[in-house]
């Protein structure tokens, strides 16, 4: 008679170390490292962009003007301010994309909030700090609306935010009657993000403005929160595998709702940075930030399939968008070719992400 042991003798003593062995070729090694540290590729792209634009720009400028050199401190400072709005919104966008969603309404959410803040102060005479708080609450409410639709109605975020993109833009237009609120009507806090320079980077002439400081602090805080709190881990787990997260005991719907609300709050902060940057409020301001914020996230190495990516990658992605945009303009490259280049970067980033995700599959 056959006994259990003789049937299974050959599998009863596995060599553990053998089963765990990894051997990789050079391509697989590269794939492995990019997988562990997805920020590597955007850092390389940014470095190359700096070298190329900086080098060629210093050569070509000369007879006409060097005041607008790519590398001049003033240029860099002004540009950082110009892109700080997009970079701020990209923090919220990163959170949403980490949960495998996307927020197409970032731009119109931000515009709506900045109109509300500006008009409260300019038309109603509300004090600046109160207007900022109201703006933050409106941002939270817009986010809660998204979160509600995503969790309760289970609609895809792409469609929800496409709808709200139009709705929020329409509300903003009606509310402001398509009129620009001038900065001189908004004293105090509202323009603080733009009206003075916080400091100059030591040993350079690069002036840093409070809007940029606000954006950078936001990046630091959110990077820390995502890496060091249970909430951060749950955001990743929810985006990575919703069902697995649920079985692990995570309240997935609460995580999603909180992500959209935090994103809404960040858009309100973006609205504040926008007020400082433009010194006025208008319903047709900052048209580019909507798609650029998504671009920054994707180029920064965050997977559009959710669950992987780093906030600091988004900061680098935002810097890449800025450097390409400004660098190519200083080269007097046609706007369409700039867009073409950014589009190429997006496709490359997504293709790279697809390849990286194949590790272990």
């Amino acid at each position, binding site marked *: 008679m*056959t006994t259990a042991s003789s*049937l*299974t003798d050959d599998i009863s003593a596995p060599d553990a170390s053998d089963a765990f062995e990894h051997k990789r070729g050079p391509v697989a090694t590269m794939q492995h490292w990019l997988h562990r540290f997805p920020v590597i590729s955007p850092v390389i792209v940014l470095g190359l962009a700096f070298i190329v634009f900086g080098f060629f720009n210093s050569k070509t400028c000369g007879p006409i003007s060097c005041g607008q050199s790519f590398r001049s401190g003033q240029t860099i400072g002004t540009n950082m301010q110009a892109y700080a709005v997009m970079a701020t919104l990209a923090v919220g966008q990163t959170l949403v994309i980490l949960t495998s969603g996307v927020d197409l309404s970032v731009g119109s959410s931000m515009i709506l909030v900045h109109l509300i803040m500006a008009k409260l102060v300019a038309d109603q005479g509300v004090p600046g700090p109160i207007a900022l708080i109201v703006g933050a609450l409106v941002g939270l409410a817009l986010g809660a609306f998204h979160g509600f639709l995503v969790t309760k109605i289970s609609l895809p975020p792409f469609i929800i935010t496409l709808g709200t993109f139009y709705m929020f833009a329409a509300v903003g237009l009606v509310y402001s009657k398509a009129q620009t609120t001038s900065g001189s009507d908004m004293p105090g806090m509202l323009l603080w993000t733009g009206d003075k320079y916080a400091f100059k980077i030591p040993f350079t002439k690069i002036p840093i403005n409070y809007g940029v400081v606000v954006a950078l602090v936001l990046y630091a805080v959110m990077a820390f929160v995502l890496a*060091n709190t249970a909430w951060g881990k749950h955001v990743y787990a929810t985006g990575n595998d919703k069902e697995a997260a649920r079985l692990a005991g995570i309240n997935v719907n609460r995580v999603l709702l909180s992500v959209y609300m935090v994103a809404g709050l960040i858009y309100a902060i973006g609205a504040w940075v926008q007020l400082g940057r433009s010194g006025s409020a208008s319903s047709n301001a900052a048209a580019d930030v909507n798609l650029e914020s998504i671009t920054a996230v994707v180029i920064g190495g965050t997977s559009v399939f959710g669950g992987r990516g780093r906030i600091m990658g988004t900061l680098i992605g935002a810097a890449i968008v800025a450097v390409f945009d400004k660098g190519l303009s200083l080269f007097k490259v046609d706007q369409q070719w700039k867009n073409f280049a950014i589009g190429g970067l997006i496709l490359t980033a997504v293709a790279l992400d697809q390849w990286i995700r194949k*590790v*272990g*599959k």
Partner: protein
Amino acid sequence: MSDGRVASGASPKGPSLVSSEVLIRPESEPMLVAKGLTKRFGRVTALEDANLELYPGEVLAVIGDNGAGKSSLIKCLSGAMVPDAGTIELDGQVVNFKRPNDARVAGIESVYQTLAVAPALDIATNLFLGREKRMKGPLGSVFRILDKSGMRREARRALDELGIGTLQDITQPVESLSGGQRQAVAVARAGAFGSKVIILDEPTAALGVKESGLVLNMIRDLRSKGMPVILISHNMPHVFEVADRIHIQRLGRRVAVVDPKQTTMSDAVAIMTGAKTVEQ
């Protein structure tokens, strides 16, 4: 048959088994008892007055053909399904599980076939997913900061205890692991939180020979630590290799519990398919 040989890894620490009755019982009190579980889906009966007993420190295999009610039975025990009738007692207390977390809080941990791990997150994070440890003092209670190094240390220890300390890097993402290693992470998670019962659903189904052996060793390790295990499996050699008792489910109810040392595989399969009947 019964030549007295013990399956290669069967631990002598397991409960002593009385001779080959139809319903064999260890001498101790059962720690998990399901009585008369019934579950119907419209006109389909998944469970019909099904019983189950699990004794301390044993590996109980649950086998049955497709549609025999194995997974419904297990889902009732793990809180993923609420039975229409019947009771579940854990350590003598009647429990009512409405959702998986209820069972987990009560000490019943399940390792699902899908493993329920987040592949992009690292091993330590996955082990503590949903019950992260925060730092002591205000850093943890006010600022909600995680005790990452503490969690890594404990994750390392949990994996070492399961004999899979060969994983060099506790911070590597789970998706870079092999199937057996992922299973190991899932089992380690189930065993790491002072649980009372671990339910493993088809843990070797997706694995190769070597990795299956690894998982079977892990099951023996759990038993040698006194952790009772319910093992659902289609793989008869694996079942006969590690189980102390085999619960045979057929047409929604338990038809027999057999001793793998007293019963042949073909007999077990015959009971399972109804080719052979037993009197209870």
